[in-house]
């Protein structure tokens, strides 16, 4: 079907501990077409954060999963998502990235739509026949909209399950992020909008790839050392993390269900949430220790340690990354072609954060993250060179087997990617890859 083979795209040979992904799915446009329908139109897709819409009438307008949409808080306080295309003949009814609006008037023929998408104004309406019904011409909406702790998701499939069921084990990790703040979390001003000349699934893999840190981010590790952090042994941990006590330097990788996965590890770097590092300066120490004590009061020592002293790279299937590392980044992306994707990345921070902490957070964010950071450009370079390499189509498979036989998979293993690929394969082919075998 669809003119392309869906056979053996993923090999999941548990008996031998081998996992392979066929490289055609990174290069052939036919697979992207199927992904659009079977993944991006059936899964819950992150659209916006409630903090971007603080007041009634506030809206953001952006492409989500390739479609122009508007997320708006109505005068009734409810958040709605509208498909940004005029029901008359198609024009964008909203052409600002953000703002505040009572209604949207299409510039083409001046039809006007309410905050709920209802058609409330049609110039020269008397020229239409009696069959013309404004109610049929409400702006389109995604089949489903729901939020979890401020994260607004949309789903184009009416029959999709509930968001909370969909998020499965990822909820606990979003909770760990959001519990940092007693005043809620907010997206900071400043969007990092960039692109990568590579397949979108390579960015999924990369966003929680603990194996590449030592080599691909060598220069960042050197930078950390220069700021007085002892990173030896912490970036390629050999033992499982003891998240209860924080003893030792450890990590783990977890499959959270439905294609979501996380790596969790003790932070080699400082975190603006209650985890001091020399680069923050002595002056920040007092505030950060007080924040840590406050977390302990609220959650007890164990969870306070987990919130502050560990980092986590969380992948929510298919295209949302919430990395709670040197700072918190929300990163979402969508492919325009098999070899080109667009990324939107924001910083998520406690609302009402002390300005000095906000400054520290941004500094910490930027040293590693983003298109001008000391790490992300190198990630982009790696993904782009992978994509170039795929032109050698005789080399058919990428290997994702690391740690497959391990009883305690670590951040530097590839369990998290296998969780993604298994779900991807199920949705694409309607069947499990489990038990498929590598040619000997």
């Amino acid at each position, binding site marked *: 079907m669809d003119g392309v083979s869906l056979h053996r795209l993923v090999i999941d040979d548990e008996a031998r501990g081998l996992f392979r992904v066929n490289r055609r799915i990174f290069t052939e446009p036919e697979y992207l077409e199927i992904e659009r329908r079977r993944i991006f139109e059936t899964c819950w897709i992150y659209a916006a954060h409630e903090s971007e819409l603080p007041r009634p009438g506030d809206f953001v307008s952006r492409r989500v999963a390739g479609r122009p949409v508007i997320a708006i808080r109505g005068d009734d306080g409810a958040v709605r998502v509208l498909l940004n295309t005029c029901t008359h003949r198609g024009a964008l009814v909203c052409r600002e*990235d953000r703002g505040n609006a009572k209604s949207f008037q299409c510039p083409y023929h001046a039809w006007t739509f309410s905050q709920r998408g209802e058609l409330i104004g049609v110039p020269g309406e008397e020229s239409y026949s009696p069959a013309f019904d404004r109610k049929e011409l409400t702006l389109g909406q995604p089949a489903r909209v729901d939020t979890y702790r401020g994260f607004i998701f949309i789903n184009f499939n009416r029959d999709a399950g509930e968001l909370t069921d969909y998020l499965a084990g990822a909820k606990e990790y979003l909770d760990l992020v959001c519990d940092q703040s007693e005043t809620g979390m907010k997206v*900071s*001003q*400043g*969007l*990092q*909008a*960039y*692109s*990568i*000349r590579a397949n979108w699934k390579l960015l999924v893999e990369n966003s929680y790839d603990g194996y590449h840190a030592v080599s*691909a981010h*060598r*220069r960042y590790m*050197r*930078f950390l050392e*220069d700021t007085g952090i002892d990173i030896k042994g912490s970036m390629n941990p050999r033992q499982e993390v003891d998240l209860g006590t924080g003893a030792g330097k450890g990590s783990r990788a977890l499959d959270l269900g439905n294609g979501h996965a996380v790596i969790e590890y003790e932070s080699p770097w400082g975190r603006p949430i209650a985890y001091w590092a020399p680069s923050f300066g002595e002056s920040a120490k007092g505030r950060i220790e007080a924040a840590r004590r406050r977390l302990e009061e609220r959650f007890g020592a164990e969870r306070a340690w987990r919130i502050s002293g560990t980092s986590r790279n969380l992948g929510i299937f298919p295209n949302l990354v919430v990395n709670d590392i040197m700072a918190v980044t929300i990163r979402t992306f969508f492919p325009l072609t098999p070899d*080109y994707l*667009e990324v939107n990345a*924001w*910083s998520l921070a406690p609302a009402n954060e002390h*300005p000095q902490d*906000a*400054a520290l957070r*941004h*500094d910490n*964010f*930027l*040293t590693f993250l*983003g*298109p*001008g950071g*000391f790490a*992300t*450009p*190198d990630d*982009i*370079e*790696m993904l*782009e060179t992978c994509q*170039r390499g795929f032109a050698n189509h005789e080399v058919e498979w990428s290997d994702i087997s690391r740690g497959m036989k391990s009883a305690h998979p670590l951040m530097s293993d590839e369990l998290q990617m296998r969780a993604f690929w298994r779900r991807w394969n199920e949705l694409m082919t309607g069947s499990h890859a489990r038990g498929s075998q590598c040619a000997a």
Partner: protein
Amino acid sequence: MERTNDGVARTRLAVRCLSEMSESPPKVTRQEVEDFLYAEAALLDAWRLEEWLDLLTEDARYLVPPTDTRDGDPVTSLFIVADDIVRIRSRVKQLLGKSAWAEKPRSRTRRLISNVRIVENNGDSVKAAANFAVYRMRYELIDTYVGCYEYELIVRSGKLKIRERKAILDLEALRPHGKISFIL
């Protein structure tokens, strides 16, 4: 060539500083700022980054605001680059080192700087602006970065130094560029 220009500008500044020491501080001219910016661009395009560091003050900052908040402040907005001098020096060290993979091998860059104007002139410090188009060539692709520089320059021992260097992009997004892996 660029060094000569730079040298001439410095000498002229120094001479004026000496001759006008007792009077009101000498005003930096647009010509001097232009020569300075051209010389800086030449150093950057030639990857003579150690020499470029010498153009900076001890408290210099290098900023690239996000494409959607170009008038933002790095404390309240997430920038693309917001380096203090420690991170500028580290950036240079990384770029000249062995493992800044996005620039290993180095891209070619070419900066066109024009429309130089002095926005504020306080004698020994000036705020200057200039338009830029910076081409980056790598893997036989060309990415063009277009925008406006805002400089805060000060005169130290008769030489211009950079206290703040802000590259404000006109691009609506870093697409298809993807990154700013060199010094913009």
